[in-house]
């Protein structure tokens, strides 16, 4: 029965060990349970022997099993509790081995010097054989090993208990109790000639049973733990995915490095920017990404980040290909597995610098557009402001003409008409006055300008018109012109207006002879600007083109040149036009050099 129970337990734990080769406690247990089963069989044999010789034989087998059990028990404690003292374990095994050897050397065996008697007694209602003889004093070796085993168990249990391995107390205590009981029984049977067969297997069975129970509990616990672990692992996986996403979403490189500079984690941008592969990065220390002369600066920054929790640094990052990329780093201290690390983000400053340039450029464009829009808005609202009174005047006048052609015109109506005409006329005149004051703004706001720069800006503003008309533009601008004081924006608008007129004037000129020359020269106390075109030229009465509302263009309002002249005059200069010798026209204006004093 004992054997069957032991074998079953042995089989279970043998299987456990087979599945998990590192579960050595299970192997030991399996060994012990198997040996216990063997021992039970052996004892049964001993109980039924017919001769002392046979008994002797059985006892030798018994001893082998005894040895195996001891070894496996020590092994079990060693692997299961992990707290036993090694030297004790070795001593126990050594003594037991010596005992086993002696058992085979000595005759008849280690237990008896001689077997004197063999008799049958009734044991638990069964007739069993027991022997009597002179106990062998050398048996002390075995007994001593048993005592050492007890000590080993007490020590291991106590230590395990101190380390709060809660299962230790049950296993250790039960082992100890059974070992002690066994020692007592052995002593009594052998030395005091108690009438009882050797039933060591029963005691070992007790140990096996307790151990089996504990191991099974462990298995259940392990199963629960495993399922918890799975949940935890899933959560960890999710967390990892989240942090991965965070790492990847950074606008620049993001990395985690240890105190010694070893890079632990990083995002793909880091590889992209540095040019190092994932494998290379794994082997790298952060230092390798910077110039040696920057290292001390870098390390100081790290020290600050580790001590204060965060730091910032601007330093050039050296790519794998040796190219330096200016970077801004921000580092924050984090704890990873109990150790301080730095998580850092690196932002490419070359992009930011480029962006800043681009933004400035864009702003400039926007300003130009706004300037153009304001001019176009002005002309549009101007058109409306002037067209309203002009319509009123015209329609009233034409109504009056009709009334007058009647036989008895309504004089009152005619008076009203004339009143309305006068009002509208005054209103139109006011619009013009207002316009003049807007454009001349009283005193021009003078600033220092390069003559060539005025041309450049105006040309840039007229770029679409120039490009659309396919005009070839050339410039004749001397390098050593003095600077002017002028209200930049209106003067640019004047040049823009002249350039646009020139483009319009060349509409009927064959495309390959459409030319425009921008020139500039110092003349007395003035700088004279000239725009020459190869267009249709000027009308007979050239001076009329400067009158307000005189337009030679179907879509023009006829205000451009009038306004332009106002602007130039406000600067103390002149605007005039002349016919070119062969074809086209020349527009000149000049600005005084001493405008600041005038």
């Amino acid at each position, binding site marked *: 029965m004992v054997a069957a129970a032991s074998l079953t337990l042995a089989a279970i734990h043998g299987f456990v060990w087979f599945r998990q080769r590192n579960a050595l406690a299970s192997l030991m247990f399996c060994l012990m349970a198997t040996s216990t089963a063997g021992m039970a069989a052996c004892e049964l044999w001993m109980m039924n022997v017919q001769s002392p010789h046979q008994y002797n034989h059985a006892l030798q087998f018994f001893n082998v099993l005894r040895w195996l059990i001891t070894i496996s028990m020590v092994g079990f404690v060693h692997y299961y509790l992990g707290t036993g003292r090694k030297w004790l374990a070795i001593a126990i095994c050594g003594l037991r081995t010596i005992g086993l050897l002696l058992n085979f050397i000595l005759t008849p065996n280690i237990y008896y010097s001689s077997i004197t008697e063999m008799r049958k007694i009734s044991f638990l209602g069964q007739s069993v054989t027991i022997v009597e003889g002179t106990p062998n004093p050398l048996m002390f070796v075995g007994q001593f090993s048993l005592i050492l085993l007890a000590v080993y168990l007490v020590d291991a249990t106590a230590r395990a208990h101190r380390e709060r391995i809660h299962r230790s107390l049950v296993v250790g205590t039960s082992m100890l109790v059974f070992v002690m009981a066994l020692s007592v029984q052995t002593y009594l049977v052998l030395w005091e000639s108690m009438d009882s067969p050797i039933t060591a297997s029963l005691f070992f069975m007790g140990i096996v049973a307790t151990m089996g129970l504990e191991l099974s509990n462990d298995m259940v616990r392990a199963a629960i733990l495993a399922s918890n672990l799975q949940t935890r692992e899933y959560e960890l996986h999710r967390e990892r995915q989240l942090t991965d996403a965070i790492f990847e979403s950074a606008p620049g490189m993001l990395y985690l490095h240890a105190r010694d500079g070893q890079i632990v984690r990083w995002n793909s941008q880091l590889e992209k920017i540095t040019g190092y592969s994932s494998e290379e990065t794994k082997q790298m220390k952060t230092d390798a990404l910077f110039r040696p002369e920057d290292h001390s600066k870098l390390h100081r920054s790290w020290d600050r980040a580790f001590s204060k929790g965060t730091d910032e640094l601007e330093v050039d990052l050296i790519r794998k290909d040796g190219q330096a990329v200016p970077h801004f780093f921000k580092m924050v201290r984090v704890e990873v597995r109990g150790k301080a690390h730095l998580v850092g983000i690196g932002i490419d400053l070359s992009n930011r610098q480029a962006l800043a340039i681009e933004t400035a450029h864009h702003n400039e464009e926007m300003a130009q557009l706004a300037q153009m829009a304001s001019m176009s808005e002005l002309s549009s609202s101007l058109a409306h402001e002037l*067209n*309203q009174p002009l319509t009123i005047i015209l*329609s009233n006048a034409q109504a009056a003409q009709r*009334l007058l052609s009647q036989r008895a015109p309504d004089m009152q109506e005619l008076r*009203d008409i004339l009143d309305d005409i006068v009002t509208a006329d005054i209103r139109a005149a006011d619009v013009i006055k207002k316009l003049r004051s807007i454009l001349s703004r009283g005193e021009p706001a003078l600033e220092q300008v390069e003559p060539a720069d005025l041309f450049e800006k105006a040309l840039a503003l007229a770029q679409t018109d120039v490009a659309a008309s396919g005009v070839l533009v050339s410039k004749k601008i001397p390098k050593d012109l003095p600077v002017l004081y002028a209200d930049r924006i209106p003067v640019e608008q004047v040049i823009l207006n002249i350039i646009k007129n020139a483009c319009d004037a060349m509409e009927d000129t064959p495309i390959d002879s459409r030319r425009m020359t921008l020139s500039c020269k110092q003349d007395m106390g003035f700088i004279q600007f000239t725009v020459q075109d190869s267009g249709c030229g000027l009308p007979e009465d050239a001076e009329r083109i400067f009158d307000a509302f005189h337009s030679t263009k179907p879509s023009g309002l006829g205000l451009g040149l009038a306004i332009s002249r106002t602007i130039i005059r406000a600067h103390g200069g002149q605007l005039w036009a002349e016919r070119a010798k062969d074809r086209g026209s020349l527009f000149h204006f000049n600005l005084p050099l001493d405008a600041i004093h005038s």
Partner: protein
Amino acid sequence: MIPPQKVFLVDDEPALLRALSRLLRAEGFEVIPFTNATDFLKAHEPDAPGCLVLDVSMPSMTGLELQQHLIDAGSNLSIIFLTGNGDIPMSVRAIKAGAVDFLTKPVKDSELIGAIRLGIKKTNEKRSTQNEITSLKNRLKLLTTREQEVFLHVVTGEPNKQIASSLGITEQTVKVHRGRVMHKMGVDSLAQLVLIAERLGLLVSKD
């Protein structure tokens, strides 16, 4: 004596409204001025004769918005736009939506008056077409269901025999129905009947 033709004037500028009113009255039109689009819409009847002279840019409701309102209301009134600074896209939009003309201020009297006369003519044409269609529709309502069926078959050019077989009646009956249809629709030839069907949009091409 012919009653004077109506011109509705909408412009937010009173002085301009006065000037145009004088001009048009002197020309013999009956002028009804409004200083904003909302007032005009309140007073307007969709079937009114005449012509609308409309300023494009007005506060609250612009001329183009008013035009859309009139289209939605099924008005026949022709519209002439006046603008201080009309651009091409705006004029294209107005003309596409059915405006008679798009004139720029200051407008010459001959241009404006010419456009108004054309507008009034178009309004009247639209109105008479609509009246005609209304009366034809009323006549169509007088036909019995069977007569309407015969009418629809006749105008597609089917011979009596075929109509009879497709409607499941005798040829003689078809002839009787046909005579009644002609009488009720007030025509005395097949050609006139087909014309009516076309005007009423009843001629669906059979593919």
